[in-house]
């Protein structure tokens, strides 16, 4: 059987778009001299990329692939990739060992925002610029690290809430399938969603929130329990697509029809966009993982002496019934 969700990151379709284009941003910026580094040639330098989770879900696969592809495209031959297998301690060690291997530029997809002290110290001592992608590091831009490229998870939660409010016409009962506990992404997507609901639609109650640990099977199991004990639920907010798709399987198994319960989720994987087309999902907020081009472009600009903003927020799309079919090719 053909895999139904092969990544399509090689095409330029679905390329990241910067929300606040570099240079024109109002926020603080950073130049090579401010940072205190020296110019070097990206092509011949050793570059390190530290991935946080296994390349096993579409997001991580697309992310790593995008970095590797872009490096290959630019002729960077010495790219070292490590994978922390979701263990934070390992990621710290990984990056330290990358530094020991003499990398001149670090691209990090952090597993966690806090706890980077030892790495930052070492990198700063050697003046190695760090670009963090998809999650932030809580530290000082331009001295501890160079810049952050990624989405705004809190904003994603808010936008998901907007979609849910639309779908339920501002009233009803909603369940949340939380991500893994303790994860920044979980926290921010939850807070954004809840804050927005409270602010805009007090008629919607959040009557259930349980973790599905970002996994499809767990999403299915929790949803099965949920619709047994809360048959009156109107909407499900899943903090990633996998859990949403698990919820869909559960609803199908329980004899529900597409659209009976409105599901909104975040990520924008191909299966989820297909789910919208099939009518099972209501909307998906995109979180774009293709960081390669933007990351290396930013690095090159920095090395060329141009000012770099302290954060580069990309603009994520929404998928809904209106655009799902046409956007299928751009989903990852």
């Amino acid at each position, binding site marked *: *059987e053909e*895999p*139904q*969700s092969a990544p399509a990151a090689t095409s330029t379709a679905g390329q990241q778009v910067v929300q606040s284009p570099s240079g024109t941003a109002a926020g603080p910026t950073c130049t090579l001299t401010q940072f205190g580094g020296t110019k070097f040639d990206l092509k011949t330098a050793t570059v390190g990329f530290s991935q946080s989770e*296994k*390349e*096993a*879900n*579409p997001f991580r*696969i697309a992310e790593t692939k995008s970095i590797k592809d872009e490096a290959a495209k630019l002729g960077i031959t010495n790219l070292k990739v490590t994978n922390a297998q979701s263990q934070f301690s390992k990621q710290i060690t990984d990056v330290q060992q990358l530094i020991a291997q003499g990398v001149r530029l670090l691209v990090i997809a952090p597993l966690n925002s806090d706890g980077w002290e030892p790495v930052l110290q070492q990198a700063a001592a050697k003046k190695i610029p760090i670009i963090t992608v998809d999650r932030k590091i809580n530290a000082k831009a331009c001295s501890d690290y160079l810049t952050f490229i990624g989405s705004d998870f809190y904003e994603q939660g808010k936008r998901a809430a907007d979609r849910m409010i639309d779908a339920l016409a501002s009233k009803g009962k909603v369940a949340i399938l939380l991500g893994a*506990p303790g994860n920044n992404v979980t926290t921010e997507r939850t807070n954004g969603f809840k804050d927005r609901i409270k602010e805009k639609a007090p008629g919607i109650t959040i*009557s*259930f*929130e*349980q*973790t599905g*640990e970002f*996994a*499809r*099977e*767990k999403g*299915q*199991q*929790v949803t*099965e*329990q*949920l619709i*047994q*004990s809360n*048959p009156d639920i109107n909407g499900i907010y899943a903090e990633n697509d*996998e859990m949403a*798709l*698990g919820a869909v*399987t559960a609803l199908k*198994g*329980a004899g529900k029809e597409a659209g009976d319960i409105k599901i909104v989720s975040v990520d924008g994987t191909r*299966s989820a966009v297909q789910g919208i087309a099939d009518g099972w999902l209501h909307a998906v907020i995109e979180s774009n993982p293709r960081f390669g081009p933007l990351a290396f472009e930013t690095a090159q600009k920095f090395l060329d002496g141009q000012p770099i903003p302290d954060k580069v927020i990309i603009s994520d799309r929404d998928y809904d019934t209106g655009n799902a079919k046409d956007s299928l090719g751009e989903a990852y």
Partner: protein
Amino acid sequence: MAELTQQRAGRVAVLKPRVFAWVQDYGVYAAVLALLLFNVLFTPHFLDASNFRTQLVQVTPIVIVSLGMALVIGTQGIDLSVGSVMALAAAVVVLYLGYGWLPALVVAVLGGAVAGAVGGALVAYVGVQPIVATLALLVGVRGLANVLVPQLVEFRNPGLIALGSSSVGGIPVIVLIAAALTLIVLFVVRRTTFGRQVVAIGGNRQASELSGLPVKRVLLTVYVISGLLAALAGVLATARLQASDPTSLGMFIELSAITAVVVGGTPLTGGRIRVLSTVMGALLMQLLAATLIKHNLPQSWTQMVQAVIILAAVYATRERGTR
């Protein structure tokens, strides 16, 4: 007179341990009943038939894995690799789905047997301690599963989907499979030479060797069976999910399975296997998880309550042992 009280004292002393032994033997059943009662009283819609179906369907993989685990624990071993073997089976089954779901299932289960055989060979022939041998497999086999199928793959094979979602007489097929496997394992443990040899080896390996039991072969077989069952559980879970997810399928299931076995009163020191109680142990843990989810407790509370219930259940069924 003195003689009489003396006798009575003797009789009471003889009787007391019996009561204790009864609690030890049937404690899990009582705990399951208590939890059922709680839910009937306090959980809305608990008595729906579909609810029972949900609980049974969800517990199926753990039950099947626990059956193999019980055999391994009976030999004083432990098998940490079961979750990864499930993942491997999930990967293999979609790779071979092109040849039809049944051949794919057979290949996947064989793959599980091979993984089990590697662990069993390390334990039986090289003499590596079970926990490390299977720990190496836990790491490596999941990696292998991910190499084979790097990310979740959805499939539309009607046969496999039907395996996961159809019912016979209102009872889901996978539940029937688990029930049948339970009976088979029960028969093997109680009535076959192999079953007796398994517990004898767990009870005293040296003595078993001197008694001419094929110790190494039995050990190998036990791990192969555990691998087989885990793989089957992996295929069934995959069929139910309608997608193969080698990354997260079966994560930490080894701990659930071990808990089910021990809560059921099988000592980790080996030499004894209680099959039905193991199934009850799995049911207890499933009901507990369902109860906590249905009552929407936060994760922190869920874990703390689980800890307490596990302790209480094992306390009731405890057997003096070192591990």
